[in-house]
């Protein structure tokens, strides 16, 4: 019974993570501007990686490898938003203009 619940939680969390990764990839490929792309890619990557790593940690739970997976999860949760924020701030400080509707026609 416990094994079935653990498997169900693992598969659900991993599928949610995969869905978030698909959304992040679509956003990175389709959105028109760097700022919107960094918004989509950073948030979807953080939540997707967090969900998949949490699923793996639940899957191996009594084993001490779960602690390593939790450390990996904390690392991703700390580093991914920091990287996205630093990238967007560097682009904004060096003067990259945000995209506006109808701005492609103007030089």
């Amino acid at each position, binding site marked *: 019974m416990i094994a079935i619940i653990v*498997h169900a939680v*693992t*598969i659900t969390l*991993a599928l949610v993570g*995969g869905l978030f*990764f*698909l959304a*992040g*990839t679509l956003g*990175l*490929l389709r959105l028109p501007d*760097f700022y919107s*792309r*960094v918004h989509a*890619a950073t948030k979807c*990557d953080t939540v997707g*990686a967090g969900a*998949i*790593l949490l699923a*793996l940690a639940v*899957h*191996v739970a009594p084993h001490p*490898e779960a602690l*390593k*997976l939790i*450390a*990996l999860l904390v*690392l*991703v949760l700390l*580093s*991914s938003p*920091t*990287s*996205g924020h*630093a*990238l967007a701030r*560097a*682009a904004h*400080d*060096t*003067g*990259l*203009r945000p995209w506006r509707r109808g701005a492609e026609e103007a030089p």
Partner: protein
Amino acid sequence: MNTFFWGLATFLLINAFACLWRAFAGPTVVDRILATNVVCTKALLVLALLGLAFERSLLLDVALVYGLLNFGITIAATRFLETGRLKGDWQA
């Protein structure tokens, strides 16, 4: 459960290859740095999944080092951009 891990890793690899197109064709420098960051995150997850599928706990350590290198590379490239060593093509 191993089949599920293999399928998820394959799906993440397809996503990573789709993100490589943005690294190749991105109009600005920051797009390429962002795409590299995203591909590194997906490779970290693929390493963790394969480490569980093969039951090699060594691959989890490799994934940990990969995440730290990913963060360092992104912050270093951002500092290059901010200090003016690396010019974006929107700058004069």
